[in-house]
Every structure is written in C-alpha cells, then in structure tokens.
C-alpha cells in the first residue's frame, strides 16, 4: 500500500511538471512579445516581470527560472491589474470556485448514485426509460444553455411568487450557490447516473449476488451490502475526470451567474490576454486536478481491498 501511495504521488508530481512545461512552451509560442501588446503595461510591471522571468535570457534559462518560481508556488504579477500577484488572485477567488465545485460534486455524486440505482432497479421499464432519456438530454444540452435557462427559470419563479425566492445572480450566501451548483453538477450527474446504472446492472447479474440471495439475504441488504459497494467502485475511479469536468464547467456557470470565482476571472484574463494570470491559473488548475486524481486513486485503493492489500 505504501509502495502504491509513493508511486501515485511521484507520478502526480511528474505529471504536474509536464503540465507546467507544456504551459510554458505553449505560451512561448505566442507570436510577438507578450509585453509588447496593446494592453497597458506600466513600466514598473514591465521591469518587474523582465526581472522575474528574465525575458532577455535564452529560452532554457527562462524555462529554468519559470520552473523555479512554479516550484515555489510563485505565479508572478498580473499584467492588467497593477501590482496584484496571481497568487493573491488565486487566494481570493479559488475558495469561491472550490465551494461551488464541492457543492456541485455533492449534488452530482449523490444524484448520480440515486438515479443510477433507480434506473437499474427499474431496468427496461418506464422509470428507467424516462430517467435515461433525461440523462441523455442533460448530457446533450450545453452547460451555458442550462445556466441561462435556469436563470430565466429563477426569474419566472420570483415573478410568480412576487418575491425573491432565489437570487438570479451573485454570491455570498448558500442560496446564491444552490442553483449554480445544481447546473454545474448536472452534466456530471448525468454521466455518473449512466455509469452507476451499467455498473449496477453488471453487479446485479454477478454470481455473488445470486449467492447472497441463495443464502437468504433480504433484498434490501443484498442491495446495500453486496450490490452498492461493488457497483460504486468503478464510479469512484471516474471521480477524477468528474472533478475536472466540474472545474472547467465552473467557468461558464460563474460567468452566467456572476459568481466571483477563479473560473470567471480566468475567462476575463483570457479575454484580456493577461499572460501571467493565464499561465499561473493553468498550472494551478493542472496541479489541482492532478492532486485530485491522485487523491481519488488513493481513496480507491482504500476502498478496494484488492488494491489495498497488494
């Protein structure tokens, strides 16, 4: 198990390095001098940046300096916001995104498991067909459309009750987060529902379920003790990609619902070509996602005795 842990963490670090490298060279391929674009770069920032990133140095030296900064967790200073470091920006906006993401993940995972279990129980009957159609629908409608429709929906609900039942946009309280998190988690929920369904169907036909029933284990206990745990295992393995989906899906939802998260900030930075913010955020997100994947792998190892004990 320790071996497994060490291997996973080391693999994760190498992957982060790869992401940082890819980011660096991708940004270096940007035509022209990033400091010479039409965005206003004050002389102080310019001097600061040149010193920091040694932009006059050969590319490999720059790369080494860049890696050094990244390793220390220093992502530089924003181009567009005077004297604001990328670290500050991440520190301020990431918790918002994280809170939204966690809520969305909770919605997605619980919804996915419940709906998946339901469809599997009613396999090939009406509830199954209905839920599965909704699932495919949820997968097929772009998140920004869902977000916009949800916003319209809140508007009409508020108008109907003639009161602010839920805020249309903004951030601050739990009620601000509910609908955006639901929208954000919807695609993942649909994906997990599908997976949970097929996984449960596989498990339901497994011989050990027959054994359990032959032993006289009641249907409820068969479901809880024997089916669910085995069916959830493969679902755990895809939580990594699910976190990635929710993270990037957050861009749109934050944009539409005017939530001051890192995603919205990133999109703004992209639109303003704020290079340091783009690079810093990309590496940060990359590292975050890799950490999540490693964490989930380890979690999976803990849940599955076949991995834990080998």
């Amino acid at each position, binding site marked *: 198990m320790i071996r497994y842990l060490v291997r996973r963490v080391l693999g994760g670090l190498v*992957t982060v390095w*790869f*992401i940082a490298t*890819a*980011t660096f060279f*991708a*940004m270096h*391929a*940007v*035509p022209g001098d990033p400091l010479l674009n039409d965005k206003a770069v004050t002389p102080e920032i310019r001097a600061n940046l040149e010193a920091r990133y040694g932009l006059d140095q050969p590319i490999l030296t720059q790369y080494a300096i860049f890696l050094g900064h990244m390793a220390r967790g220093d992502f530089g200073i924003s181009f567009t916001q005077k004297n604001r470091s990328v670290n500050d920006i991440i520190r301020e906006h990431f918790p918002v995104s994280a809170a939204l993401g966690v809520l969305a993940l909770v919605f997605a995972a619980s919804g996915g498991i419940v709906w998946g279990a339901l469809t599997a129980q009613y396999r090939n009957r009406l509830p199954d067909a209905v839920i599965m159609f909704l699932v*495919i*629908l949820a*997968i*097929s*409608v*772009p*998140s*920004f*459309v869902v977000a*916009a429709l949800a*916003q*319209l929906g809140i*508007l009409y609900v508020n108008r109907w009750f003639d009161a602010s039942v839920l805020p249309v946009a903004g951030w601050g309280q739990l009620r601000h987060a509910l609908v955006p998190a639901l929208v954000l988690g919807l695609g993942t929920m649909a994906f997990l529902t599908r997976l949970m369904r097929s996984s449960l169907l596989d498990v339901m036909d497994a011989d050990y379920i027959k054994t359990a029933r032959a032993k006289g284990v009641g249907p409820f206990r068969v479901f809880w003790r024997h089916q669910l745990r085995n069916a959830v295992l493969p679902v755990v393995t895809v939580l990594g990609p699910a976190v*990635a989906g929710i*993270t*990037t899906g957050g*861009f*749109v939802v934050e*944009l*539409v619902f005017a939530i001051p998260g890192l995603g919205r900030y*990133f*999109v703004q930075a*992209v*639109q303003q*070509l704020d290079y340091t913010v*783009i690079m810093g*955020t*990309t590496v940060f*997100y*990359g590292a975050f*996602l*890799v950490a999540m*994947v490693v964490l989930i792998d380890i979690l999976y190892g803990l849940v599955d005795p076949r991995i834990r004990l080998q």
Partner: protein
Amino acid sequence: MNEATTPMFPELPSSAFAPLSLPESEPLRQQPAASYWSDVWRKLRTNRRAFCSLLIILMLLVFTLIGPLLWPLDPAQPNLDLISRGPTLGGQAQVVDLSRPWVVPQVTSWPVSPVSNAQTLAAPVAIALVEPATTQAVRIQWDPVVGAAGYVVYRNDHQPESNQDLGLPLRTLFGGNQVGHEDRLRLRPGTYWYSVVATNGVDESPVYTTLAVDVHPGVRLRDLPQLGRAGQAGDFVELPAHPLGTDYLGRDLLARLMHGARVSLFIGLTAPLLFVALGALYGGVSGYIGGRTDRVLMAVVDFVIALPFLLFMILFKIAFGIGPGESGILPLLVALVLLSWPGAARLVRGQVLQVREAGYVQAAKLLGGSTLYLVFRHLLPSTFGVLLVALTFAVPSAIFTEAFLSFIGMGVVPPTPSWGSMCNDGMKTMMSHPHELIFPAAMISVTVLAFNLFGDGLRDALDTQLGEPGK
C-alpha cells in the same frame, strides 16, 4: 410417489413405430446468413431511437449543405431596422420615404392664451393619422386645444382604461401650436393606442383622446436595393421572411444557423475524424509492438490525458494566434486534435492487445500471414467497431468544445457565425429576446442528442453482435 405417471400406455398404431430416417445433416443454429456489418445494420435499424437519430443527423447535413442554396439570405447582412425581431414570415411592406425629415404640423394662426388650470383643458379632437402607419413611422396630428400650452403623446399596447393607463409617454410638446408627432420608436406590426393629452405646461389635463392605429410593416426607400427590391414610396413590396427572427444586428437567424452549422459540424466532424485516426494509428502501433515501446508510448498518452483539456484548448488557441481576417477555425481544429487523440489511442491499444491474443489472429500467423496482413485483415477490422462508436461520441464533445470556446469568446472569430458564438450573442439579449439564444442552443442540443443516441444504438448493436450465440 406422485411424479408424473403413465396410467396406461397410449394406444398407437404399429406404423407409428416404424423407424424414422434421421436428417442428413444438422441444421445451423441461426437462420439468417448475414455478414457482420449487415447484421449490425439490421440491429441498428430496428433500434428506433438510434434510427431516428441517424435521420436527424442526415437532415442536419442536408440543412448545412443544401440549406444555404435554398435560403440565400446573407448571414452577415445587418439590418438595423430588424434588430432582435422574433420569427416572421415576411409579407407585404409599404415603402416609406423617410429622406425628408418630418416637420411637426404647426398652427400659426392659433391664438395662444394659456390656461392656468389644467383641469379645464379639453381633450384634443380630430386626432388622425397623417400617412399610412408603418413600422418605420407613425405620424399623427390633432386639432389644437384651446388654452393648451403643450401636449403629451402616449403610446400603449392596449386600449387605455383611464388617464393612469395611457402607456409609454413618447414626447411632451411645448408650445400649443405644435399639433403632431412622429413615432419611430421600436414599432412592430400590430395595433397601438396613441393618446394625446393637453397640458398647461405644468400639469396634464385629466381628459385625453385615444387613437387606435394599425401599424403595418414598412420599409425605407433607401433600404430597397439592399433587400433586392425596387419601388416608389407608397408601393407595397414583398419583405424577406425571417422564420427564426433576427439577431441583435438584425441579421437573419436562419441563415446564420445554416452557416454556423457549417462551422460547427465541420469542426465537429473533422476534428474527431482526425484525432480518432491519429489515436488509432498510435494506439494500434503501440499495442501491436508491445513491450517497452508500448510502455513509453502509453506514458506519453497518460501525460496528454492529464492536461486540463479546456485550459489547454484556450492556451493553444492563444499560442497559435489568429491573424486579421482569419476565422480561427484552423487553430481550433489543431488544438482539438492535439489534445483529444489519446482517448482513441488507449481504446485501440486495448482492443489490439485483446485481439492479438485471439485464436484467429494466432491461427493466421501460423498460416504464414505477414504482419501487414494480420494488421489489415484481422486487427484493424476488429477495432473498427469500437472506433466507430468512439467517433460518434467524439462528435458531440467536439461540438460542445467549439460551442464552449466560442461562448467565452475564444473560439471562432466574429463575424463568422458558429452555433457557440451565436449562443454567446444570444445570451446578451436572453431576457428580452430569448429566441436568439434558444434557436442556436436547440441546434446544438439536437445535434449532440442525435449523435449521443446514435452512438448508444451503435454500441448496443456492436455489443450484441460480439456476444456469442448460445451464451
């Protein structure tokens, strides 16, 4: 013991016990002699959802390829008269010459002696249209009211019930001799109720006069060439239909959807084809060679998969840069291919590893089949099914990616329309003109839904096909 018993032997003629000749050969288990793919096709055809999806996909292709020929409106032609209009089917419009400015009718001879108490002011009389009312302009005038120092003109979309219900105040005219108004404010075909109230300069009279005006479509004389029409002021001309309405620049939504479909479907079909082919080649080679080479090649795949997809799409888009006048489609395509091939590579590698050990491949090897023969005769055809499924599922995700990037302004560059950028535009006017969002969003959703359902059906058909009989 009460098992099934035979109390008496059934009475039978002795001829019943004559020997029966055995059939010469055994029958086959299944009747239809269908090839692999024709069998898959048969299964697919009987899957109603998948078949409908296939029809929808074909219709979409027709829409994209043939649509613009049948619907020749220019998707880039703005029309500031028709900003954010809902769906219309065109119809007649009267040509209006608005080149001469409208002069408010003035009554020079009217004696001006303002009344101090607005309560005593009468309602205007003889309120009337000056010219036929069109969506370009409604011109009304009325007879002056004795003692009025000015007038307020209101417009409402229903018959006012009281002087509190007069609607939108359009204009306040100061000077009792100005007795007319030209309304050019966002007129739509339909009926408007114009109310005129006299004022003493401070307060309004409690009484009013209302005129119901039927507004008909109108078109400006100078816009006629643009629409490909000719005529004089007062003529009626046929207007172009906008069955899906217009956008915030007055461009025809249907034409934009058709041209946007070209972009979205081009990216949605080309990118998956490219990256699935690339991935298949890579994974196939890796799986077939195996060993150390395989491990190294697959490590690369792992790295590329670990890249946060959308972030790197954006990064690559920025890195490739977009010159002036370019649409940004090519960088999008390249970025998509660069980041998406590993999925197919893994899939094909797995399949190759599995099939490589199958008896029929080993048998072919023993029969003297060269590597090329094995790959092309046995391995590739066996991966074809999963590749096809991967392809159908890659199409919606590519369409999604394009839409997402265009939505955040990182995709196709305006004015080239794509469904994603149209959604982005539509978002801005979502609250007042939802059709601008709904139509492109529906196109994306229907397309993605069709591909998803088709992919599901295809996978089912292939799965049951691969399942062996009797098991």
